[in-house]
């Protein structure tokens, strides 16, 4: 249980509060304030995972969001499970249960490590080269094998019990990052009238100051942070968020921020969300996202115990743990010597430092030298000993050009358990680039720096991410950025404090070697120079990719998978660009970068979904009669957002049986359908009739009040958009119905033309779908039933004809009754204000009992309308069907003039004889029901391919016809009605059929007109 590697004092952890956790089943102890990574280090756990491809043992490399190796599956409680959690970003919680990934059967003995032996075959492009053929083997052999062998953590198997929130926010200045630059900027912005947000992904403010404290304004930086934070908390215009990562930057300064609200609590209050997603629209953004330390690329640089120098310093200073007992360092810059000093202060033995520079200079270098540590100039670590953890390194002097060991050099061995390294720091330009900013290569600093921004995203970068690498420059940069954005906003800071001051670093040199040579030439021997640790791509892979012709960095990326892991190349990419530029012999500026994609760091699905889950994912629309349907056992069908009764099964009845019963009852007695979901639009105004003439293919201005007419609506391309019955209420008012799913699109379509093409027309459109409830009663007894409930309308066939409507009273409710029919039987569509819908329905059911009234659903409705050959838009049509294809020339007015889609109907293509046209279909064997969507052929062959001439659009068993019926679209079908076609089946059998008129039942219409 002892934390062997915990320093006796120091760090920002709370030693009064020990926390217990398990890793791979073993129990350990850490302190409040630890990350999972620092707690593992405190307990001497170095091997934390296996790599993706070679299953190489891996340890913790970094201390932050850039960590590629130390990912775990996190479990806490019974159902919580977070896959691939980054231990360096996970705050330790009491009871936390973590499991390593990418290993089988266990972390220290891994079968997949055999891949490592065959690594010569796993070079870049390996997937493309090896698994190309045979094609069939891909699905059955290769993919399952690769998926099992690779694949990071485990996906959760149970629903997430936590809840997540989303929040919209607005501010004038959003500051991303609360390191020295961000704090300096916030301090100024707080003095203005601007609404300011300051967000940082860590649990406390300070950024790199938490690792390397320095003197600011004459005080200790810890004190400075406290002072600035107090200023910000006192300012009413400033909102501050910790544990909040800006993950995505969208156009016009719309930034997504992922806040971990309760992840760090062992027993969070149930009322609080686990995580929250802020979507902030900011007037100006100050990007102060800092930088990431770059690893050196040397032989076997992935061994557990090889760690970034700055990360080692962070573990010592911030968490009070030491990542090793004896450390060798390999660096190329002066700043890293600060980390070596931290090691020395923590009592870590440092036998020697390899400095790639021939003449190491700089104040920190000198300080280390003064502590008596030998600095071996121009030397490098050329090999690492110890597979599951560093136990020694090989050191050699390099040649002058740094491409190999010096001639005749024999590496010497140095025992150690820690190898810290640093190639300098790379500005985190992700946010700048997501905001469409451009980059320029700095030869002096060997990194890309933000240059031109986009005028769609007003922002300013400050601090390390802008190349202001020392503390003095970062403080000054943050201050200046704030003044700049406030000026742009016209919101000056009043009494802004002077810029905070710190001592500037003295200039010192650096030496860039993109690849630190090993004992053997790259690609020879077993040592590997890793670039992307998580995806196991190496320097050799990159060079091979270039040799094989990948000259664009985007191609190199995809061929080698460099930068495509979950850390998105935060460690890898700049090294990769350097190596590729060297291989191509061009400047890195020419090579460029790959696209900085959002999100900045892997984000939980939970926070992206927020509350838009389960019932809240999409609204469910219910009719006024819905409670009755539920009480009476309806099975529902989703039609758009509507819940419609599909059928009403009796106890134990199948859908098939229910539909036969419902349709027979309607043809014999009376059926009742909830038709409330039909779209209803009031078209009102002096020009309403003229407007309808322009949007329907047939004429409506001539329709008399009290009459109804079926209409077909086209898009401008001549294809059918929708159909429905429109009735004239009065001289200047029409009542339009649309198909259920098309109500909103049709209203949009009408509005678009009204507003943009014919704004002079005096017409108003109002959606009244929700205002009216509709019960349709149909069948021979429909009139008798309605007569009992409607005292004030003469319902006789003579007085109230087909395709007419009347205003009256039904079941004591004000009602509009429409005599229209979608079933082919006498039918009344009774519309009442929605609040009366349930009353109307239950009254009809009660009074209708003596007429054997039977509720029917959409399935029966479909069968009945198919018997009559009535089309359903979206079933018989698919956006490529025009009226003539449906033999509906009768509805296309030749005389009335222009209407939407008219000109398109007379394009040459529309009169081709081989267009797909609507026909009825009868199978030769009347008991066979075709599959909807089945393909039809004219010339049957023994086996495919055969010319397909059409397909089945609707197919049912028809009770009224006593046989199967179908509708279909067939090339040239109208001219060849009665022809024999075939439907070849997947099992090799063939269904023979004949085409016919699409009207199967009561072709004269005596029933509906009666």
């Amino acid at each position, binding site marked *: 249980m002892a934390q062997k590697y915990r320093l006796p004092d120091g760090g920002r952890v709370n030693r009064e509060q020990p926390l217990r956790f398990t890793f791979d089943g073993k129990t350990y102890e850490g302190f409040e304030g630890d990350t999972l990574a620092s707690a593992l280090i405190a307990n001497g756990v170095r091997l934390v995972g296996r790599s993706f491809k070679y299953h190489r043992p891996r340890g913790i490399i970094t201390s932050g969001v850039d960590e590629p190796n130390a990912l775990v599956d996190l479990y806490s409680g019974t159902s919580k499970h977070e896959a691939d959690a980054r231990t360096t970003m996970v705050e330790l919680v009491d009871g936390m249960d973590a499991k390593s990934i990418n290993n089988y059967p266990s972390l220290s003995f891994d079968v997949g490590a055999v891949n490592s032996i065959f690594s010569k075959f796993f070079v870049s492009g390996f997937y493309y080269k090896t698994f190309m053929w045979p094609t069939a083997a891909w699905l059955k052999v290769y993919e399952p094998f690769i998926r099992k062998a690779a694949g990071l953590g485990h996906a959760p198997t149970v629903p997430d019990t936590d809840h997540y929130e989303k929040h919209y926010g607005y501010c004038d200045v959003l500051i991303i990052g609360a390191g020295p630059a961000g704090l300096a900027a916030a301090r100024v912005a707080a003095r203005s009238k601007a609404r300011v947000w300051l967000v940082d992904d860590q649990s406390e403010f300070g950024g790199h100051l938490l690792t390397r404290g320095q003197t600011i304004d004459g005080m200790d930086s810890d004190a400075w942070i406290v002072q600035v934070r107090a200023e910000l908390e006192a300012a009413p215009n400033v909102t501050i968020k910790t544990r909040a990562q800006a993950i995505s930057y969208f156009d*016009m300064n719309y930034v997504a921020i992922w806040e971990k609200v309760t992840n760090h609590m062992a027993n969070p209050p149930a009322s609080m969300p686990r995580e929250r997603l802020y979507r902030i629209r900011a007037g100006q953004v100050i990007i102060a996202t800092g930088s990431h330390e770059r690893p050196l690329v040397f032989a076997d640089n992935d061994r557990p115990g090889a760690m970034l120098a700055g990360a080692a310093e962070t573990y010592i200073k911030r968490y009070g743990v030491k990542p090793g007992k004896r450390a060798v360092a390999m660096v190329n810059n002066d700043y890293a010597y600060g980390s070596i000093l931290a090691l020395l202060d923590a009592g870590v033995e440092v036998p020697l430092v390899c400095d790639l520079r021939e003449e190491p200079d700089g104040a920190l270098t000198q300080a280390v030298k003064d502590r008596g540590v030998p600095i071996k100039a121009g030397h490098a670590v050329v090999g690492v000993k110890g597979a599951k953890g560093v136990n020694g390194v090989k050191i050699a002097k390099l040649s002058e050009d740094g491409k190999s060991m010096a001639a005749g050099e024999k590496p010497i061995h140095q025992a150690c358990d820690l190898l810290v390294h640093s190639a300098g720091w790379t500005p985190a330009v992700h946010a700048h680039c997501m905001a469409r900013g451009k980059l320029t290569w700095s030869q002096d600093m060997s990194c890309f720096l933000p240059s031109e921004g986009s005028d769609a995203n007003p922002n300013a970068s400050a601090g390390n991410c802008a190349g202001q690498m020392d503390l003095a420059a970062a403080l000054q940069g943050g201050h200046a950025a704030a003044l700049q954005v406030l000026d742009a906003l016209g919101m000056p800071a009043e009494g802004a404090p002077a810029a905070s001051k710190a001592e500037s670093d003295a200039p010192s040199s650096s030496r860039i070697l993109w690849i630190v040579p090993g004992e053997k030439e790259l690609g020879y021997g077993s040592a590997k120079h890793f670039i992307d640790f998580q995806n196991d791509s190496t320097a050799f892979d990159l060079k091979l990719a270039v040799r094989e012709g990948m000259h664009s960095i985007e191609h190199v990326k995809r061929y080698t998978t460099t930068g495509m892991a979950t850390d998105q190349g935060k460690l890898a990419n700049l090294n990769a660009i350097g190596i590729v530029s060297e291989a191509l012999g061009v400047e890195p500026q020419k090579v460029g970068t790959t696209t900085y994609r959002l999100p900045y760091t892997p984000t939980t699905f939970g926070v992206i979904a927020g509350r838009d889950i389960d019932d809240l994912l999409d609204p469910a629309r219910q009719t006024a009669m819905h409670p009755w349907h539920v009480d009476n056992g309806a099975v529902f069908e989703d039609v758009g957002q509507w819940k419609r009764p599909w059928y009403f099964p009796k106890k134990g009845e199948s859908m098939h049986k229910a539909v036969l019963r419902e349709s027979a009852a309607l043809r014999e007695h009376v059926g009742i359908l909830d038709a409330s979901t039909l779209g209803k639009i009031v078209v009102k105004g002096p020009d309403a009739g003229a407007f309808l003439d322009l949007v329907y293919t047939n004429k409506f201005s001539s329709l008399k009040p009290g009459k109804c007419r079926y209409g077909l609506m086209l898009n401008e391309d001549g294809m059918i958009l929708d159909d429905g019955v429109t009735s004239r209420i009065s001289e200047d008012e029409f009542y339009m119905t649309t198909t259920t799913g098309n109500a909103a699109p049709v209203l949009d379509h009408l509005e678009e033309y009204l*507003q943009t093409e014919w704004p002079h027309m005096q017409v108003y459109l109002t959606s009244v779908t929700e205002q009216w409830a509709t019960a349709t009663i149909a069948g021979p007894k429909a009139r008798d039933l309605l007569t009992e409930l409607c005292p004030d309308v003469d319902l006789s066939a003579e007085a109230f004809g087909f395709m007419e409507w009347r205003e009256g009273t039904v079941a004591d409710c004000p009602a509009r009754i429409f005599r229209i029919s979608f079933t082919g039987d006498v039918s009344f569509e009774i519309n009442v204000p929605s609040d009366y819908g349930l009353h109307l329905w239950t009254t009809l059911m009660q009074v209708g009992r003596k007429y054997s009234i039977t509720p029917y659903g959409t399935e029966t409705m479909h069968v009945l309308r198919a018997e009559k050959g009535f089309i359903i838009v979206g079933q018989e049509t698919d956006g490529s069907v025009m009226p003539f294809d449906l033999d509906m020339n009768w509805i296309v007015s030749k005389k009335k003039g222009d209407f939407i889609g008219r000109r398109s109907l007379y394009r040459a293509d529309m009169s081709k004889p081989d267009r797909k046209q609507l026909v009825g279909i009868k199978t030769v064997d009347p008991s066979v029901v075709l599959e909807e969507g089945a393909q039809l052929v004219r010339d049957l062959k023994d086996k495919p391919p055969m010319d397909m001439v059409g397909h089945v659009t609707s197919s049912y068993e028809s009770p009224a016809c006593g046989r199967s019926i179908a509708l279909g679209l067939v090339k040239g079908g109208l001219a060849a009605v009665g022809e024999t076609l075939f439907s070849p089946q997947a099992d090799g059998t063939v269904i023979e059929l004949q085409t016919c008129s699409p009207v199967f039942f009561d072709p004269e219409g005596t029933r509906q007109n009666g």
Partner: protein
Amino acid sequence: MLLIECPHCGPRNESEFHYGDQAHIARPEHNEGMSDQEWAEYVYLRENPKGLFRERWCHTAGCGRWFNAVRDTVSSRIMATYKTGEEAPIGADQEGGQL
């Protein structure tokens, strides 16, 4: 997520709007005399310039009104919005040009 200034409601998120492609294309009134080619150009063909573009938007989840915008297709910055029937305040003479 663009921020679009609806001329009737003010600035709103892009998710409230519906895109309507190129603006200022009147539907040909006397289209009977048009050739298939001319008609097809009206129905199907639209400009796709790099630079300023006058385009239509509808504030679907707000006032429901159509209006026009001048947008720089390079940066996606919306330079101006204006009501249907009005002249473009900028960019009408430099459509497809750079700022």
